[in-house]
């Protein structure tokens, strides 16, 4: 398994769009899409939990090449909180109930479009990382908060 590549992100974006999957890039992969310079290993997707979205998601993942036989597909459709996939062309974490974010629809209202990629707002990315209480997130939060200040200033109305 190699590193996650831009073309694979494009495949997610385009395939999910065709299947009508409602999702957002979250975590450090989301921050990287917003411009945060750091390293990570895989992509985290915050997926809206509903049966119809789960069905669309399974169809899209199968088209991308993930091995999802019935028991696993059913788990995704029924909405486990967290699913880790390492059985496809790249690693993917599906997060249906991230720490620090109450509702998908709330995050969707705040989301940012980056060249067609739907990305959680930097505040939601920070809130979810802060809520995990994990050592690795604690270490990355100061720099992420600094990036938040930079990003907010750069994206103020009137700034280019």
């Amino acid at each position, binding site marked *: *398994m*190699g*590193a*996650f*590549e*831009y073309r694979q*992100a494009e495949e997610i974006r385009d395939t999910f769009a065709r299947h009508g999957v409602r999702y957002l890039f979250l975590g450090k*992969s989301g921050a*990287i*899409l917003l*411009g*945060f*310079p*750091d*390293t*990570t*290993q*895989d992509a985290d997707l915050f997926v809206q939990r509903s049966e119809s979205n789960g069905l669309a998601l399974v169809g899209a993942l199968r088209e991308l090449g993930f*091995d999802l036989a019935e028991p*696993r597909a059913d*788990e*995704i459709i029924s909405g*486990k*909180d*967290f*699913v*880790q*996939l*390492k*059985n496809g062309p790249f690693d993917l974490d599906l*997060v249906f*109930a*991230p*720490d620090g974010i109450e509702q998908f629809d709330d995050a969707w209202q705040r989301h940012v479009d*980056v*060249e067609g990629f739907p990305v959680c707002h930097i505040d939601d990315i920070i809130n979810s990382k802060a809520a*995990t*209480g*994990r*050592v*690795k997130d*604690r*270490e990355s*939060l*100061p*720099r992420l*908060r*600094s*990036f938040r*200040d*930079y*990003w907010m*200033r*750069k994206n103020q109305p009137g700034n280019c």
Partner: protein
Amino acid sequence: MSHDINHNPDTDAGWSESGGPAEWWAEFEAAARRELPLRFRYAFIHTYKPVMDDADYRSFDTTADYRRWCEENLPDWLGYGRF
């Protein structure tokens, strides 16, 4: 490179107006000048993570279950434990 994670940007001298070391601001500016595909190439790496990478599929009923599994099964140095 290490940074003081407990600093107060409102009171600490030597920090940029962005609320972090001035070098961070410079890194953000440099990243903003790169096209997205290049940012991806620099950002995504792959290294083997013991235990975590030893199964091709895992699912958890709750996020709390996932956090607990990480704490109980992954090596501490991966950083998935709680502080």
